[in-house]
């Protein structure tokens, strides 16, 4: 990268706790943000198998103008466990953040899938990879040539079907990649759980059977 190229910083954060989280991606442009008024930014985030995005939730959030995102892959089951799911991709539109100059952010609600139980660890890790930052400008900018590392085809606008050529920008990721911890069942408990469950259910059903025979009259 040339010494005169201003830097783009990208940061991924995860908000909230539990199975329902919010992925927040913050982008900060070092300089030349006045030129970027005519440009559009898009984030292409790959969603690992351990997570899923609810397209209907996205649609209702779009109506409330909270975020604008579209799931690119189709035919995924939002109820399947992680080992029966595939990776998917989401395109999120990036909005200007009024809190600082040259700041933008993108927001996506994600949910955990159920994971395979583990023999020892009570938690499994999900790694969220770094996204592609795409930019498309109406005019030519020199600084764009500085940042652009590849050409990517993506919809011109999230609501339209037309495909445009976007430039994938080089950026520096601050902090490590997001790692999420999912609680999973412990297989060391399997024999205990199975035996106690079956014992209790058989005991309870026997008690009910005894009550039925004692207080009711079985006849035909």
């Amino acid at each position: 990268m040339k010494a005169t190229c201003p830097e783009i910083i990208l940061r991924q954060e995860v908000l909230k706790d539990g199975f329902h989280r919010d992925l927040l991606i913050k982008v900060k442009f070092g300089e030349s943000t006045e030129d970027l008024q005519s440009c559009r930014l898009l984030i292409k985030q790959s969603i690992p198998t351990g997570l899923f995005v609810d397209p209907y939730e996205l649609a209702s959030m779009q109506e409330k103008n909270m975020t604008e995102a579209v799931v690119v892959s189709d035919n995924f089951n939002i109820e399947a466990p992680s080992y029966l799911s595939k990776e998917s991709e989401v395109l999120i539109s990036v909005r200007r953040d009024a809190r600082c100059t040259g700041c933008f952010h993108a927001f996506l609600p994600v949910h955990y899938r159920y994971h395979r139980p583990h023999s020892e660890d009570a938690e499994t890790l999900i790694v969220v990879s770094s996204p592609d930052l795409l930019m498309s400008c109406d005019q030519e900018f020199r600084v764009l040539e500085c940042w652009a590392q590849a050409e990517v085809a993506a919809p011109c606008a999230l609501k339209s079907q037309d495909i445009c050529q976007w430039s994938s920008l080089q950026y520096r990721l601050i902090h490590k990649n997001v790692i999420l911890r999912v609680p999973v069942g412990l297989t060391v408990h399997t024999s205990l759980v199975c035996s106690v469950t079956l014992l209790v259910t058989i005991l309870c059903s026997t008690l009910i059977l005894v009550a039925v025979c004692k207080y009711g009259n079985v006849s035909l």
Partner: protein
Amino acid sequence: MASRSHWGAWFPSLWVHPACVFGVAFLARVALVFYGVFQDRTLHVRYTDIDYQVFTDAARFVTQGRSPYLRATYRYTPLLAWLLTPNVYLSELFGKFLFISCDLLTAFLLYRLLLLKGLEQRQACGYCVFWLLNPLPMAVSSRGNADSIVASLVLMALYLIEKRLIVCASVFYGFAVHMKMYPVTYALPITLHLLPERDNEECHQSGHSFQAHLYAFLKRLCSRAVLSFVAVAGLTFFALSFGFYHKYGWEFVEHTYLYHLTRRDIRHNFSPYFYMLYLTAESKWSFPLGIAAFLPQFILLLAVSFTYYRDLVFCCFLHTYIFVTFNKVCTSQYFLWYLCLLPLVMPLVRMTWQRAVVLLMLWFIGQALWLAPAYVLEFQGKNTFLFIWLAGLFFLFINCSVLIQIISHYEKKPLTKRTKYD
């Protein structure tokens, strides 16, 4: 006599005309629907159930002439999407008003069934209040949940059987089974209930041989009432199934029937089997354990059918309670399936009101003890699986205690005004 403190004893002192009670119940539900509209627009957490959105989206596909199964997680009969097409043409609130009306129809059928059993108007109304002014069915219907449709179909079938209009009852029963699979368990008690009484002469002649008994039983099975019930219900169910299969293909069978029959939701739910099935989901023990989980349910349902078939309503209540309690998947939605029959069972159960309140509190405590670790797991991400499992077992134990108390305090004749008080 213990009947003095029976919960039904204080009803005669309250006299409100049934129409008033129904009117208040209707207004309360309508108010909740409009409150729901307000909450949906202003707060982030929606009042309306996510399922209602699913129904409306599926109805939209139907109005465009496409399959409702294009909507992900639509696992219901196309009939429901068809019924809700006015959601798209008229207003999104149509469905909720339909569910509220079915709720009130359920209460009306409860009232008529109680009158048929020999209760007085004010007593019957008193028991119906349990459903009419109960916040749980109120909230469930106004949130857009379709269970009230199945409840009203089931109660209509039971009411028509009591009136001996077997063919009509069978049609409603066929529709009920098509919409939700759980009423299929009522087939055995209904069949036994419709059997003609055993001939005394036949009894003496047949002696004690098993073959003779079996032959006599099969002969009774071929009575007109039983045959017409089986034939008409079967015809209704298969006509609906083939009709929709012809229109929507295998997707219809998969989402409407197979999903519910083979449903093994390994996500946390009230079922005592949840953790066991989650841990063994991919092991070779998964299938045998599934059968082991099915057997108690099956044996209990058989035992209850052969014991209580003469009192059909009580039998169906026990059936559904056992079915839900011992099922591999159990969510709070399922509780309504037996709660809608509880007002019919209450006059038959001779229990002091103190005992009834204790059982009710235990039932709520059981759910609360499950909801706490489930909340911590889902919204705080801590590993509370063992606690959820133990809470599930404890809730099973509480449900069994309630069941045993109901069975042990059951009397065939309801407590009516004619029963003398000391």
